[in-house]
């Protein structure tokens, strides 16, 4: 099949950037979307043009490195699929496609379709963990967790941090990402001691990073390649509000000995 591609080309973070049109022949329906771009890039290099930069790594939909917007939809038309696992059979001959990077103030463009998502790391660093230094754990089975809760936690933990939720959100909000981690840990007994502090800190960090607010629109849930649900955002809101209302100033630690 034959495709017309309009791809966002931007040389550097400070460059203006613009859509550039390419046409590509002999696209096989068995190719993944990224393999199609590989073919385009090989052709560009041979012609002496700089290849299109795009992030990718595992190409099996789990590392979360890849992702861009295809025809206005983050990760393209197939639900529950990252662009690396999206195959060309989802498109038809002579289709015209528009490829753009995730767009958000908190995700500045690095080059072409590559954006900087380190804001996500800082949100996790603000509280997306259980403070348990290596070696301080009790026996695994000493913490009993109802299967249903463990399953819910797992569903929330399945987030791959790709950023599609931010990209699809009209407000460029990171609520689904943040809510997924707050839910994952907040649902488990291990996460209880820091549950509310975690919500307060992670939400605050998301705001510092410049992500927008959630207006409960639901586009994030629809484009999420791992099916993370909107309910996680409600859980985040709940933990945040309870945490904020019941907040107490930390007490000074008494010196021992």
């Amino acid at each position, binding site marked *: 099949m034959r495709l017309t591609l309009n791809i966002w080309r931007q040389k550097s973070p400070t460059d203006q950037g613009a859509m550039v049109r390419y046409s590509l022949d002999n696209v096989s329906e068995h190719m993944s979307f990224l393999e199609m771009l590989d073919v385009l890039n090989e052709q560009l290099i041979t012609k002496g043009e700089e290849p299109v930069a795009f992030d990718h790594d595992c190409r099996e939909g789990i590392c979360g490195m890849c992702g861009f917007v295809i025809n206005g939809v983050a990760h393209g038309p197939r639900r529950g699929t990252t662009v690396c696992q999206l195959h060309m059979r989802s498109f038809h001959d002579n289709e015209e496609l528009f490829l753009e990077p995730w767009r*958000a103030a908190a995700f500045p463009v690095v080059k072409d379709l590559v954006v900087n998502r380190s804001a996500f790391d800082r949100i996790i660093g603000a509280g997306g963990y259980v403070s348990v230094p290596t070696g301080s754990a009790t026996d695994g089975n000493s913490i009993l967790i109802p299967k249903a809760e463990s399953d819910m936690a797992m569903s929330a933990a399945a987030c791959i941090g790709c950023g599609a939720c931010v990209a699809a959100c*009209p*407000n460029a909000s990171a609520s689904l990402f943040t809510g997924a981690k707050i839910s994952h840990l907040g649902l488990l007994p291990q996460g209880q001691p820091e549950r509310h502090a975690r919500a307060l800190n992670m939400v605050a960090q998301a705001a510092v990073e410049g992500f927008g607010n959630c207006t409960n629109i639901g586009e994030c849930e629809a484009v999420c390649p791992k099916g993370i649900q909107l309910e996680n955002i409600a859980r*985040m809101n709940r933990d945040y509000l309870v945490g904020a209302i019941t907040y107490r100033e930390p007490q000074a630690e008494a010196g021992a000995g």
Partner: protein
Amino acid sequence: MSSSATSPARTARMFDAPVAKKAVMALSGLVLFGFVLVHMLGNLQVYLPPGPDGRYALDVYGETLHKSALVLWGARSFLLLTALAHIVSAIQLAQLKNAARPTAYVKQTAIVSTYASRTMYWSGPIVLAFLIYHLLHFTTGQAHPDFQHMHVHENVIKGFSVWYVSLFYIVAMSMLCMHLYHGVWSMFQSLGLAHPSYTPKLKLAAKAFAAIVAAGNISIPLSVLAGLVK
């Protein structure tokens, strides 16, 4: 833990976070929704026949509401403050939204979201503009050529007899319907209340309430224009 949470001015900081602003939106929205619903029910008294003393039910109702100045102005101030909170939060959230995506997509396609949810920032101001007109029209009378203080029923009939006034009311109520269509469900989510078995029912109920409020209110100008209410 990062330092952001442990600073002393907790309450002030708390409202910095979008989550808290959304909670303010939700709580104020809840109050305003309650008001709109009761207001609509009150309005429906326009359909009641005049009492034995020949007075219209709506006029009696109006009088009852005005009995105590304290209650009246208490309620009015409360509603005004609530509306202000709703509006201020909305403005702040809109600013956040614009700052969060400075460069727009060349192409953006919505795949699941409702038109209503994406247009809250439009339906809201339109409802606000309507509200101001509505107050000038039926409460203070500046926008009503034949306004008579406390003659509520007559004011309504005369007001709605002008077709373009009625049309504006109908359009505004459709906007309110859309606003509630998303807002009534959304406030539960913003307050952290969601559950796979209740949320779908809640969404249905929200839609029903939005439709009821709008239908109740829209029926009045329509009935006046059709000559069903005199």
